């Protein structure tokens, strides 16, 4: 799997963060990715969509995705080119939903104190390490389960199930 390498586009410092806040609850039924991208973090920073670039990463605190997470906020973030979320820990329902979408989520204990906004960071899957190139620091990441890794490699749930089709046909 290709390393994640980009800038810290946003740090969600709140623990148990409810991702619906990214686009706002009143916009949670919007389906258009471009509109969701425009709305992402808009209430906090109106030019967020202009500042980020493909490959950038999001950083979260403990239990990121708590509540009743919906898909539109991260559909918007992916439309902007955001490449993944790194957090102290994740709420299991949120994690499962985003991995199924092929959107990398990485548990990095200690990350919230290890980054500032716009730092250049990298996830090295091979060594299971987080690097902050700006600060010159590293942290171990929590390894993915086989199922989650296969799903991310396949680009999400549908690709993963096709890969299993092939495996079962040849196995």
């Amino acid at each position: 799997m290709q390393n994640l390498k980009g800038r810290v586009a946003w740090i969600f410092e709140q623990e148990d963060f409810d991702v619906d806040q990214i686009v706002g609850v009143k916009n949670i039924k919007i389906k258009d990715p471009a509109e969701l991208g425009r709305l992402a973090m808009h209430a906090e920073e109106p030019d967020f969509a202009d500042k980020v670039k493909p490959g950038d990463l999001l950083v979260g605190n403990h239990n990121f995705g708590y509540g009743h997470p919906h898909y539109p906020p991260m559909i918007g973030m992916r439309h902007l080119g955001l490449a993944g979320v790194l957090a102290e820990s994740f709420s299991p329902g949120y994690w499962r939903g985003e991995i199924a979408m092929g959107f990398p989520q990485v548990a990095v204990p200690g990350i919230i104190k290890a980054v500032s906004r716009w730092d250049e960071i990298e996830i090295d899957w091979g060594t299971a390490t987080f690097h902050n190139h700006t600060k010159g620091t590293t942290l171990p990441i929590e390894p993915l389960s086989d199922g989650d890794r296969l799903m991310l490699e396949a680009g999400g749930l549908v690709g993963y199930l096709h890969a299993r089709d092939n495996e079962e046909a040849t196995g």
Partner: protein
Amino acid sequence: MGFTIAEKILTRVSEGGSVHAGDEVLAKPDFVIAYDFPGYTDVIFKQMEEDFGITKVAEPDRFALFIDHMVPAATTAEEDLHQLTRDWGAKNKVPVYERKGIGHQVAAELGYATPGAFVVHFDGHISQLGTFGTLAIGVRRHLLEAFVKERIKFKVPETTRIDLTGTLQKGVTARDVFHHIVRVLGPRGCRGHVLELGGDTIDNMSLEGRQSITCLAMFTGAITAIINPDARALDYMKPRARIDIEPLFSDADATYTQRHKIDVSALEPIVVVPPSPADTRDLSEVAGIEVQVGYLGSCASGRVEDLALAADVLEGHKVKDGFRLNVIPTSQEIMEIAAERGIITRLINAGAFISSSSCDYCFGRMGVMRAGERAVSTGTLNVRGRMGSPDSEIYIVNAAAVAAAAIEGRIADPRPYLKG
């Protein structure tokens, strides 16, 4: 080293030997359950056919579909979605249950909560089948995997064991017990774990109370909750169980990642303050806050004993002028029992508005609030905008406290209404 009930169930449905927490297995769900909802079932049906060329499921009895949201339909698009579900069910010979109540409750009534079974749904509140010793897990869009494959890839979860002890005071319910658990453990106290419940409080609790607690497991961070089935659970499920399997139980020397003992004998009615499902307070701290709407219902609460308790509080009183009290029994079976016992009549006489069972009041499709309004609710969740305007607020309380607020038009302690 012994096994937890969750490990034993996943061993039962996986190939190979015994499994422990941390193992990754390919598990065959005994039942795959869903309610129809845009973006879920319609997408799954389409993907099955277009991406995987599956035009018919192999074992239709393993599947069950419920139509419980958007009931009754308010737009033709909603009825179109329901028709799509009915057509898919007919074509696949998969049962579609509609107008019977909220699916998570009806699934128990219909025996899908067979003790020892493994069940998946996209919605996490299916955890309440754990009341009957069933391992039931909400997997969100991963549910597609269970529709196109016989087995799903699954990591055996760790288990947190909680023993509850003590007798609840009058006016304090299972609902308060759950929110107290969140208060003690925090919103990530059981993150990723199975929450296994036991102790004398659970032993003495009705099945309805246990359903209320297990329904809400996700707000502790757990992926589900489960109770080792006792005689009460087994007796209820025996005539209903859909498959012939042996119930399973945790071993005495099972390995738990954490163990907690929580005494509930001094517990008071609780309020979960918006907008977090984890901001838990004693009712006395927030008594007096004016509220305009009351909702008694949902897959968590709204069962016979909740309705009876609300009727007891309202006995000899009326719903305050202008207050909108919506009472929606969790299923038609529950409504029928409540009607036979005269509970429905008592609620109507006190001024409650009663509807047939539906999920729609819980997620803001019906009975909505304007900006600036506040509700007391037994719904599942109090996040912003859940019951209408993003600028309205939801205070989660037990059934008795909904009734007390309906009398006074403000958050009020229900216990004085239950004396004598």
